């Protein structure tokens, strides 16, 4: 408990508190603008936090993450356009509610459900994170190698529709991660005689390109010249019926549990949590046929589920140093930017920082109640009147300024551009981008762990498989890779027979 009370005093100081309020508002705005997403926003923000206090930087990440997950519900309800991929399920009942003149009520339910899901998830992080970190004290280099490979394999096969392409993307990320001077031998690898490549490719530069440029190009392709009319954004207040809010409590509890479970799994994201929560609410309902026609339970389940995924996805990231999704990877990047090594030792060496970040995830969820209400929602919805073509250059400028300030090198702008164009094409041919980033982050850890394990065992490779925990992790990794491929092959064979 002292762990959190100490952290709370730091979190409630001026810097982190202001950052949380500002970033939550910014997050709601980003979520509300279709085409912008939390990953892009956090990637753009990270370079600017180099000179900030780590707790302030992490407060901004927490605010944007939680705020944008709720913000995505605004266009999903008003226009049937999901602001983020995680709010697709919100459109199913949110838009029919708006169609019936209940938009304000749907937005209020989305706001409360997002806050409740976020709070439940933060509590799970605060209770399970330190426990898992204690278990990892028994891990050696062999276990860390397998944890890194397991994390990457899970993300590789779970994101996207094609496991082979997912694993291929992860291997590409691992290979990019080897660029630069090898820390153990001093050998320069894949530097092509360029001195600026000796430190390898900067993760944030590649990340901004991969995650921010493809949505910008897609916005340009849509060439939205008008934005929305005032009439499309008009809201009328409809009061709640007696007992209506109490009736949402079981849905909130169920969706929170599902979201937390999905969040802990590497690779599964807020969209999966929202769909599973929505289906569970529909199955548990006395009137499943009312779903899809404006049932408030549908909005509550989807929004609570996608926010409950947020903090839970940080559990493996903070305790094991293994990010389960790209936002968690960005949090790890934020820590490394400030010279902090993610993993179990972080809990002992920087308890204020880890505890503080967990408190920030909790407090920014609470802030959604206060800041995401009807007034803010009305204000943010107005930004959708801005034509999409004006957003395209604005985001490009933010990308450039964010990348340039990292090292002050013009060459980074070109790396960002090439990474972005490659990301655009790769997404089009169904190659997921998340495994590339996770490969870049986990690659050095995997390589150093395997080489250390071999040094300790004097070159005996069986060391990687004979320790009980590493053997279990190796089997789990094999199953994670082989099972989806086997299932896909069986499905294809059945389709061919039919």
């Amino acid at each position, binding site marked *: 408990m002292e762990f959190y009370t100490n952290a709370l005093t730091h979190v409630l100081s001026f810097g982190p508190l202001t950052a949380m309020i500002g970033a939550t508002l910014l997050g709601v705005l980003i979520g509300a603008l279709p085409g912008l997403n939390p990953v892009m926003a956090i990637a753009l923000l990270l370079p600017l936090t180099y000179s900030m206090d780590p707790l302030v930087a992490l407060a901004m990440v927490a605010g944007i993450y939680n705020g944008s997950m709720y913000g995505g519900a605004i266009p999903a309800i008003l226009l049937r356009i999901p602001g983020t991929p995680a709010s697709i399920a919100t459109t199913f009942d949110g838009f029919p509610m708006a169609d019936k003149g209940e938009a304000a009520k749907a937005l209020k339910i989305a706001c409360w459900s997002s806050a409740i899901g976020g709070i439940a998830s933060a509590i799970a992080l605060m209770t399970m994170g330190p426990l898992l970190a204690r278990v990892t004290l028994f891990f050696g280099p062999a276990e860390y190698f397998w944890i890194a490979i397991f994390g990457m394999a899970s993300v590789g096969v779970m994101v996207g529709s094609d496991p082979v392409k997912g694993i291929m993307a992860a291997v590409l990320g691992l290979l990019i991660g*080897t660029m630069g001077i090898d820390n153990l031998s001093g050998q320069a690898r894949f530097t092509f005689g360029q001195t600026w490549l000796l430190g390898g490719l900067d993760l944030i530069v590649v990340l901004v390109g991969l995650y921010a440029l493809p949505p910008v190009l897609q916005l340009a392709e849509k060439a939205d010249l008008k934005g929305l009319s005032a009439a499309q954004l008009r809201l009328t207040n409809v009061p709640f019926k007696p007992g209506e809010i109490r009736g949402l409590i079981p849905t909130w509890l169920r969706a929170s549990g599902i979201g937390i479970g999905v969040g802990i799994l590497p690779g599964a994201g807020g969209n999966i949590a929202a769909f599973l929560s929505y289906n569970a609410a529909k199955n548990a309902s006395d009137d499943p046929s009312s779903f899809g026609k404006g049932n408030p339970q549908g909005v509550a389940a989807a929004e609570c589920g996608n926010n409950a995924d947020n903090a839970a996805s940080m559990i493996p990231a903070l305790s094991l140093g293994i990010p389960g999704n790209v936002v968690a990877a960005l949090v790890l990047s934020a820590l490394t930017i400030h010279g902090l090594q993610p993993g179990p030792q972080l809990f002992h060496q920087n308890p204020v920082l880890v505890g503080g970040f967990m408190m920030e995830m909790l407090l920014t969820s609470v802030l959604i109640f206060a800041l995401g209400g009807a007034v803010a929602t009305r204000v943010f919805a107005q930004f959708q009147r801005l034509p999409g073509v004006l957003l*395209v250059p604005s985001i490009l400028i933010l990308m450039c300024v964010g990348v340039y300030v990292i090292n002050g090198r013009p060459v980074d702008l070109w790396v960002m551009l090439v990474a972005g164009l490659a990301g655009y094409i790769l997404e089009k041919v169904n190659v997921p981008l998340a495994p590339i980033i996770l490969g870049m982050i986990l690659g050095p850890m995997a390589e150093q762990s395997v080489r250390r394990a071999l040094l300790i065992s004097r070159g005996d490779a069986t060391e990687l498989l004979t320790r009980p925990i590493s053997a279990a992790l190796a089997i789990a990794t094999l199953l994670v890779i082989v099972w989806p491929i086997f299932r896909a092959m069986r499905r294809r064979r059945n389709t061919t027979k039919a």
Partner: protein
Amino acid sequence: MEKRQDIALGLLFAAFGIAAAWMATGYTGASGNYPMVLGLLLALLGGAVTVRAVRATRNEVRALVDAPAQMIIAAVIATIYVALVVPLGFYTASFLLMLALPAALGFRQPVYALIVALVFMALIYLVFSVLLEKPLPREALLSLFGSGA
């Protein structure tokens, strides 16, 4: 599955993997083993994607770019912007981008675009140059005035 796209993708990754593995043979000791294994694995996976696409009986035609004209315009202007940021200066190049890109994409309300550009650039200046004091590429126009004075 789009057969042609997947064949090209697989071949590209396979070539990339083989090149990486070949380069890794030149690295000393253990520092070459890891990238060599990764390169070979990438080549193997690329080969698998190609073989699977060649053997596939179905071909779902899928456009690589939905609106080629708009995408090319945006990509070319973004490239020109990146090329001009350092020689022209960050604020000059960015201001020009705010006006040129919407116009190139068909936005015909120059006053609206100008107001948005002025407000946005003022915000960027306040946040990055005044509040965060981040060093950005120097303005060529200011340098000209500076040397003339």
